[in-house]
């Protein structure tokens, strides 16, 4: 997987988030402050601009640029959190022009760590971690089993989607939804939903 592969992933994320902008904002209106879709859409629109201004040469450079742009443009909690995820992915992949599924799985694991460290959230707190963690685990086991990237990505996306849906019955313990206490039960977490969309954009 080279810089072209990762560029295609980011372009697909931009497309998927734009289509789902209003859905994410609606989810956020129920248990947050009704801006998750607009914020991510704004951030990834800036990413599109940044990529065309300075086309990166390696997967690592590309993902670092994505992370920095999100931190600089999104604001809220999702900016620093997604920004750290992508920045860490970029850092882990280093200067390599080509990365393997093993490399990507390892990078995802460290990316997840940076998100949980910054957000202080654990699985089950009803946050994006509930989608990212099962996806990272699935990628790792797929890499160990020697699956082809396409199959691994399909499984990771499914795990993320399942994790996002599983936030519905949970009471939020982190983020803005936590202020609602028991009233946060019965709604899908918007951060988990956007994380699942980002994973669903990963095609071979």
């Amino acid at each position, binding site marked *: 997987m080279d810089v072209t592969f990762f560029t295609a992933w980011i372009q697909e994320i931009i497309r998927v988030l734009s289509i789902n902008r209003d859905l994410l904002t609606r989810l956020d209106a129920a248990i947050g402050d*009704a801006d998750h879709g607009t914020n991510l859409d704004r951030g990834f629109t800036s990413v599109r601009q940044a990529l065309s201004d300075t086309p990166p040469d390696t997967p690592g450079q590309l993902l670092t640029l994505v992370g920095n742009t999100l931190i600089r443009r999104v*604001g*809220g909690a999702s900016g620093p959190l997604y920004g750290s995820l992508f920045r860490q992915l970029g850092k882990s992949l280093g200067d390599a022009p080509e990365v393997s599924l093993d490399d990507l799985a390892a990078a995802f694991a460290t990316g997840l760590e940076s998100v949980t460290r910054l*957000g202080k959230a654990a699985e089950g707190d009803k946050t994006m971690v509930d989608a990212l963690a099962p996806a990272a685990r699935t990628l790792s086991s797929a890499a160990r089993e020697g699956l082809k990237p396409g199959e691994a990505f399909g499984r990771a996306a499914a795990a993320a989607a399942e994790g996002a849906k599983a936030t519905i019955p949970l009471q939020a313990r982190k983020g803005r939804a936590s202020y609602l206490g028991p009233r946060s039960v019965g709604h899908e977490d918007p951060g988990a939903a956007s994380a699942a969309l980002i994973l669903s954009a990963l095609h071979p």
Partner: protein
Amino acid sequence: MKKLINDAESVVADALTGLAAAHPALRVDVEARVVWRADAPRVGKVALVSGGGSGHEPLHAGFVGYGMLDAACPGEIFTSPVPDQVVAATERVDGGAGVLHVIKNYTGDVMNFELAAELCAQQGMAVASVLVDDDVAVQDSLYTAGRRGTGATLFVEKIAGAVAEAGAPLAEATRVAGAVVARSRSFGIALTSCAVPAAGKPTFDLPETEVELGIGIHGEPGRTRAPLASARDLAAVAMDAVHGDLPLAGDLLVMVNGMGGTPLIELYIAFAEVEAYIRGKGARVARSLVGNYVTSLDMQGFSVTVCQLDDELTELWDAPVQTPSLRWGR
């Protein structure tokens, strides 16, 4: 929902353009989203910087000026500013004596200010911070994001601003800001939701006969829903929550704050009830503020913020202030 805007995408920039035009004592960088005092940086004076999502006006930009904030960085509607904004604001007002960041306790605000503080430190600026978390509707525990920062933010900005204006060092301004937080509590009640411009419709539906208790300042639902009641009963709900957390005693600074869509006449009705409640507990309203100061766009409703005063804090509250939205003694 009707809105007096040009374009939902340009709400914050258009409002900053108006702020700049209306208040020549302020400097406004619409592109960088920073508002600062025209006389900043002041050499040797500790600078105060705050910021947060837009939609809470006049907080924070309306409190930039003599005796209060040196700079504010407004984010998108209800979205914390990005680190670049905070760094830009800090650079513009740092007079060499250090900068105090006033942060409302929300996950996003805390993260963006922390990232900004790291960058400021790398540039050699001395930065301290105070976290405002006064909202008693939220239980503070290891398993939550902690209490929200709401009305007490104004108290912190005014009182710490007075300390800084008097020439105190950064550690002293930080200490006093922390004391205000420790002595302040808030509780809010909504009669309606609010409409975020980009969404175009109210964030949630609230029937004519119901209110939301324990709201924050982002148009989000509160802790519980209850039947609409009189101003007396609603004030009692808010004050019971405040009193239950920090018993009312001695001289108090009391703000009855409108959420943006409540007429002042109704806020004064609420204030009368709050004052009677406080008197009933044997405490006294020594200083007060009634009006729309920490708002949630066009939400109808109010919040009460109470701070236990001592001589030092009273004197600092009374010190001169000259900002677009808070002005006395000068």
